[in-house]
C-alpha cells in the first residue's frame, strides 16, 4: 500500500522521526519552563529564552567552528537572560507576566539587532553535529531511522527522565515543589525560598535556551525570530502536561506530531492551501488548551512574589 507514492510504513516511520525531531525544542522549552514554574515563577519568557539560545548557539558555533561550543553558549546566555527574569520577578517582585514580557521583547530586540549588525551581510553557517545512532535499534528495517538522531534529541529525552527523577525523588525536587506550592511553609522549615527560585529559574532558562539551540543544529543558520512561537507552544505543552515532565513531554510529542503531519502533508503535495495546513499545530494547541484548562492545576504559588 502506498500513499503519495511512498509505502505507508515508510511514511509512518518518516512521520514519527519528524515528530521526535520537531518535538525536541518543544520538550526542552517545556522542561525549562517546568523548572521555573514548579518553583513558583511564571515563565512566559520561554520564547525569548529560546531565541537567545538559538542566537548564542549560532554565534558560539560559527566563532569556534564547533556546535558543541555553540550549545554551551546557548546554556550560558539563555541562563543569563533568565537570571534577569529572576532578578525582576523574585528580588524586585515585578509582576511575573510583565517580567516575562520584558525578557521576550529584550531577547528578540537584542538578537535581531546583533544579527543585523554583524551577520546580515555575511552569514556563515555553523558547524554540523554528528548523528548519534542507537546500536541494534537503528538496524530495524524502515523504523531504524527513528534511532538515528542528532545528540540534542537524545539529550532532551534524557532530560525528561532525569527531571522526572529529580522532581519526585530528590531533595531538590521536594524543596522545589514545596516552594512552588507554599513558600511560607518552606520558609518556616528553614528553606531559602529565594535561592531555590533563583536556581530553578536560571537552570530552567538554560534548558529552554538549549531548545532554541536545537533550531541552529537543524538548519545551521540563524534568522531573526526563527522560534516562531515554539516557546509559547512549549508553555502550552507544560500546562497541558499538568506541570509534570512526562506529561509535558507527551504534550510536546502531540504538538510535534501535528507539526510533522503538516510538514508531510505539504511535502506530499496535497492540493490544499499551505497557509491553512500551516496553522494546524497552532489550532491543535488552542483546542487542547481550551479543553485542558480547568482540569489542570498549576503550582499553588505560581505567579505570586514571595515576601518575607
Amino acid at each position: 500500500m502506498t500513499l503519495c507514492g511512498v509505502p505507508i510504513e515508510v511514511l509512518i516511520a518518516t512521520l514519527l522521526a519528524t515528530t521526535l525531531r520537531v518535538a525536541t525544542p518543544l520538550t526542552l522549552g517545556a522542561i525549562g519552563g517546568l523548572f521555573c514554574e514548579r518553583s513558583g515563577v511564571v515563565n512566559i519568557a520561554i520564547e525569548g529564552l529560546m531565541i537567545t539560545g538559538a542566537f548564542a548557539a549560532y554565534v558560539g558555533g560559527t566563532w569556534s567552528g564547533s556546535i558543541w561550543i555553540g550549545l554551551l553558549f546557548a546554556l550560558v546566555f539563555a541562563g543569563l537572560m533568565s537570571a534577569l527574569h529572576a532578578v525582576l520577578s523574585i528580588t524586585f517582585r515585578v509582576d511575573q507576566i510583565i517580567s516575562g514580557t520584558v525578557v521576550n521583547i529584550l531577547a528578540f530586540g537584542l538578537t535581531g539587532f546583533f544579527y543585523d549588525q554583524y551577520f546580515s551581510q555575511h552569514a556563515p553557517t555553523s558547524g554540523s553535529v554528528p548523528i548519534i545512532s542507537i546500536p541494534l535499534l537503528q538496524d530495524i528495517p524502515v523504523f531504524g531511522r527513528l534511532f538515528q538522531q542528532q545528540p540534542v534529541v537524545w539529550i532532551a529525552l534524557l532530560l525528561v527522565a532525569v527531571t522526572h527523577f529529580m522532581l519526585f525523588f530528590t531533595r531538590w525536587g521536594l524543596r522545589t515543589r514545596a516552594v512552588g506550592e507554599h513558600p511560607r511553609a518552606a520558609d518556616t522549615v528553614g528553606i531559602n525560598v529565594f535561592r531555590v527560585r533563583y536556581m530553578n529559574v536560571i537552570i530552567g532558562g538554560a534548558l529552554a535556551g538549549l531548545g532554541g539551540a536545537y533550531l541552529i543544529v537543524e538548519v545551521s543558520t540563524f534568522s531573526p525570530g526563527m522560534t516562531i512561537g515554539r516557546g509559547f507552544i512549549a508553555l502550552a505543552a507544560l500546562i497541558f502536561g499538568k506541570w509534570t515532565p512526562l506529561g509535558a513531554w507527551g504534550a510536546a510529542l502531540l504538538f510535534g506530531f501535528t507539526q510533522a503531519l503538516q510538514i508531510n502533508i505539504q511535502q506530499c503535495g496535497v492540493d490544499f492551501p499551505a497557509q491553512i495546513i500551516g496553522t494546524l499545530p497552532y489550532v491543535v494547541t488552542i483546542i487542547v488548551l481550551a479543553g485542558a484548562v480547568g482540569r489542570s492545576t498549576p503550582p499553588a504559588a505560581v505567579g505570586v512574589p514571595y515576601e518575607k
Partner: protein
Amino acid sequence: METRPGTTHESHIDVSGFRPDSVPAPDPAYALQARGMTKRFPGILANDHIDLDLKPGEVHALLGENGAGKSTLMNLLYGLYKPTEGQIYIAGKPVTFNGPNDAIASGIGMVHQHFMLIPPLTVTENIMLGGEPTVLGGILDREAAARHIRQLSDEYGLEVDPTAKVQDLAVGSQQRVEILKAFYRKADILILDEPTAVLTPQEAKDLFVIMRKLAAGGKAIVFITHKLKEVLAVADRITVLRLGKVAGTADPKTATEAELASLMVGRTVLLQVDKKPATPGKVTLQVDNLVVLDNRKHTAVDGLSLEVRAGEIFGIAGIDGNGQAELVEVLTGLRKASSGTIKLDGKDVTHATTNNLIDNGLAHVPEDRHKYGLVLTYAVSDNTVLNTYDEAPFARGIIRNDKSILDFARKVVARFDVRPTRVEVQARNLSGGNQQKVILARELSRDIRLLVAAQPTRGLDVGSIEFVHKQIVAERDEGVAVLLVSAELDEVLALSDTIGVIYKGKLVAVMPRAEATRDKLGLLMTGGTVPT
C-alpha cells in the same frame, strides 16, 4: 480563700505586670525564659517588656485579644522577628535567633494558626521537608522518614498515615501532622498558635488530651488562645496579655472566666448574652423540603424544613460541612435549590435573585467575611453601601453620589463603633472584629425582615463577640427573624430561642432553647440519638 466572681482584683491574680526586681535569674530548670521582650514596629509598640517562663511538663496558656501582642511574642520566640529589646534563655542559657532555623535548633517547634502544610504533598514529605534523610547525596529516603514518623506517632499518640496526601486529611489530622513536624525536628518546646480556631468541638477535645499527654511526657507547651473555657480546661498556668503588656497571670484552678475576660479586655465583659424572652410573631421564613447540591453535585441539604418567626432567633447547631454553608447560600440567593420551596413573608422566593431578596428585606452576615462580606480593597465607605449603592440617595441615575455615601458611612461607622473611624481607609486594613462591624453596619442599617448570620463571631475576640451578639439580639427585639448558623455550641446556646441540629443535610432535631443542653446537642450533631 475568699472569692468574689466577676471582679478583677482577686488575691490569686497577679496584675502587677513587669517588675524587674521580681524577675528570677535565668534558671536551667526552665525550658524557656523570656525577659523584657520588646518589639517596636513603626508607630506601634507591639510587645512592651513581656516576661514569660515556661517549665518542662507544663501547658502555659497565653491569653489575649486580637492585637494584644500574642503573635508578635511567638514570632520573637520562633525567630521570625528580632526583638527590639529583651533576652531569651533556653535552659538558662542566653540565645539569639536569627531565623526559625536557630529556634528549631534550640528545640522550639511552632504550629501556626494557618497550617504551614503543603496540600498536594504527602504527610511524610511535609514532615521531612527541610530535614530530609537522603542517600547518595540527594535522593530522598522516604522509607527512613516514614519509619521515623511512625515511631514518633506511636510515641506521642499522634495518629496519622504517613503516605496520605495532606489535602485528603481532616483538619484535626492536619494539625497532628504539624505537631509531628515539630517533634521530627526534636522540639522540646511546642508553641500552639490558636490551635482550636479551626477545630470541631470533638477535635478540640482530642487535642487537649494530646496536649496533656505531651506535657506529662516532659514537653513544655505554649498554648495561645482567646477562648476562656479552653484555657481553664487545659492550662497549668495562664499569662494574660493586653495591649502588648502582661496584664496579669492567673492560676486556672482558681480563676474564673469572668475574671480572665476582664483581664483580657480591661473592663468587665458580659459573657452571658443579656436578652429578654422572645416574643415570636408570625412566620417570616418558611423552608419546605429543601434539597441542595454542593459543588461536587452531592446532596448537601437533604429535604430540610424549618420555620423562623419574626422576633425569634433560630440557631442551627452542627459540625461544619453538614450542609450549613449550602443552606445559607441558597437562602441568600447564591446557590440554586434543586427542589423544595423557600418563602419569605409568605412570598415564594425559592428562585429569587440575591438582589431581589435584599429588596425583600434579607440581611446576610456571611461565613467568610473576606471572600463574601467585603471588598477588601475598597474603602470602608464603599463597603457600607455594597448592596444599596445603586439606589437613592447613593446614586443619581448612573452617577454615584459620593457625599451621601460618605455621610452614610460616617453615620453607621460611628453607630457600630468601627475603628479606625476614617471611612476612607481600605477594608483590608481593619482588624477582623472591625471588619465584621462594617458588615453589620451595612446589613443592619436597612429596614430588614430576615437576618441570616453564618459563623458571625468566628475568629473574633471577646469584646467584638459581645458587640456582635448584642446587635443580633437587638435585631430580634426589633421584630426581625434571625437564622443563626454557628459551629460554636456556646454561641448557639447563648443566642437562640429555638435550636435546630443539622446532621448530613437534615435537621435531626428542633427544640426550644430551654430543652437544649451541650451534651444533648453534641450527641445529635454527631449523628447520635437522644433517649426520650
